[in-house]
């Protein structure tokens, strides 16, 4: 049943946890790293070179806000020299004059720009950054002017799910080739803010119809990727394409992880690049091998005909909701605790219905989780 270990294809590099936005669903861990923990330029370049040797063809440069790294153009150039496809994932606020052009010059292949809302007030509120929307529009224009292909990323939750048609118009008006309508995944900060973010079932159903119709209408004009919300699902997603199967990520301090939220699984410990090479970690890290393939699976996954389609779903969601990282992802209708998902949706609706003064989000900030709110 164990297949041979294949080389990884994709890597997400979280260059920094610093970010001008404070989105309450950020996929970064609750314990954010400060700038003094970040790898230096040469270490990232060494890591990228090892990644290319290992078979990585595509690197997503992310954060935090990756453009806060002053060496970003150098990092792009390093990847580009190795023929690695580079995708910059940016919030698009506060990027100094000339830098987007410098990224393009360094060989950047593609730019992905997030919009927290299709309306300025929504973007500014969700990111807790005044004037953010206008800056993002400007970033999109500059990216297009620099000849960069553009994806608009829209993380969806109860406060902007009704804006989906406007997101589609916005992405078209900005000349984007792609739009991601990405329902928030409840890990990291989104798990903390789940009750405030969870959409209503009727809104989720409407959204699915709107996206299906837009995809049909926009065939050959703009691609729409639709990341559906797990809590409303019947089958789980093949999270990361399967644990440590063809992709991994690196945290700002060089910790190599199978996925964003892997550090929420207390039984696992993770290794850092530097003390160990990327190839060693990919092949031999006990954390990477913990949920690789299908041998670790319990029932109902073990005998399920979909076990190599969804690879048991998300290990971190199993940890968060079932309390067992090796359990079937509760998003799956075959999970013995699948009904818990519907209960959590209902709980969120009740919690959100209670009026409370002031902002209800726990905004993403360095140090916020270690201090009493």
């Amino acid at each position, binding site marked *: 049943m164990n297949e041979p270990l294949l080389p990884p294809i994709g890597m997400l590099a979280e260059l920094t946890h610093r970010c001008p936005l404070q989105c309450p669903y950020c996929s970064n861990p609750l314990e954010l790293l400060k700038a003094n923990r970040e790898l230096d330029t040469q270490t990232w370049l060494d890591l990228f070179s090892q990644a290319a040797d290992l078979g990585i063809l595509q690197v997503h440069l992310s954060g935090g806000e990756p453009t806060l790294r002053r060496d970003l153009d150098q990092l792009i150039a390093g990847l580009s020299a190795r023929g690695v*496809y580079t*995708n910059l994932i940016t919030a698009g606020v506060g990027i100094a004059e000339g830098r987007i052009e410098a990224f393009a010059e360094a060989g950047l292949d593609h730019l992905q720009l997030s919009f927290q809302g299709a309306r300025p007030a929504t973007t500014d509120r969700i990111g807790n950054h005044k004037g953010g929307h206008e800056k993002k529009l400007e970033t999109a224009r500059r990216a297009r002017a620099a000849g960069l292909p553009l994806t608009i990323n829209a993380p969806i939750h109860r406060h902007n799910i009704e804006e989906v048609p406007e997101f589609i118009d916005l992405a078209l*008006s900005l000349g984007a*080739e792609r739009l991601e309508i990405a329902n928030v995944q409840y890990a990291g900060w989104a798990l903390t803010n789940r009750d405030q973010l969870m959409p209503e079932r009727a809104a989720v159903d409407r959204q699915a119809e709107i996206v299906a119709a837009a995809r049909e209408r926009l065939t050959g004009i703009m691609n729409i990727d639709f990341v559906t919300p797990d809590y409303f699902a019947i089958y789980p997603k093949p999270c990361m394409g399967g644990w440590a199967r063809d992709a991994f990520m690196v945290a700002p301090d060089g910790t190599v992880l199978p996925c964003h939220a892997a550090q929420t699984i207390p039984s696992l410990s993770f290794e850092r690049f530097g003390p160990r090479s990327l190839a060693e970690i990919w092949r031999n890290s006990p954390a990477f091998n913990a949920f690789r393939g299908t041998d670790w699976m319990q029932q109902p996954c073990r005998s399920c005909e979909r076990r190599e389609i969804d690879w048991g779903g998300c290990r971190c969601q199993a940890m968060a909701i079932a309390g067992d990282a090796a359990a079937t992802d509760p998003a799956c209708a075959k999970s013995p605790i699948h009904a818990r998902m519907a209960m959590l949706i209902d709980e969120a609706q009740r919690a959100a219905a209670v009026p409370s003064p002031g902002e209800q989000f726990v905004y993403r900030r360095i140090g916020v989780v270690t201090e009493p709110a």
Partner: protein
Amino acid sequence: MTALRERALVSSRSMPSLPKHVRIQYDPVRQAFAVLSPEKIFWPNDISLDILRRCDGRSTVGHIIAELAADYDAEQEAVAADVVAFLQEWSDKLLVKL
């Protein structure tokens, strides 16, 4: 800007090219040609690769069909149907520009 964009349809006079966000690259690790795009990586078979390599923005679809028919020693009509269907599919996914 919105109004200017519409779905492109393949004709024998189309001159397909790869958009800037798509490139063909040999991968020494897997010893195969990959097509790299923003989120996906494709591993085209020999025939797909032969079509994509000819998408240079100068050759017409008619010319590409004639060349492939000669290379594969096949009927032009049969080749034409496959090439047109392939290019329309790739254009619809915005992986080929017409």
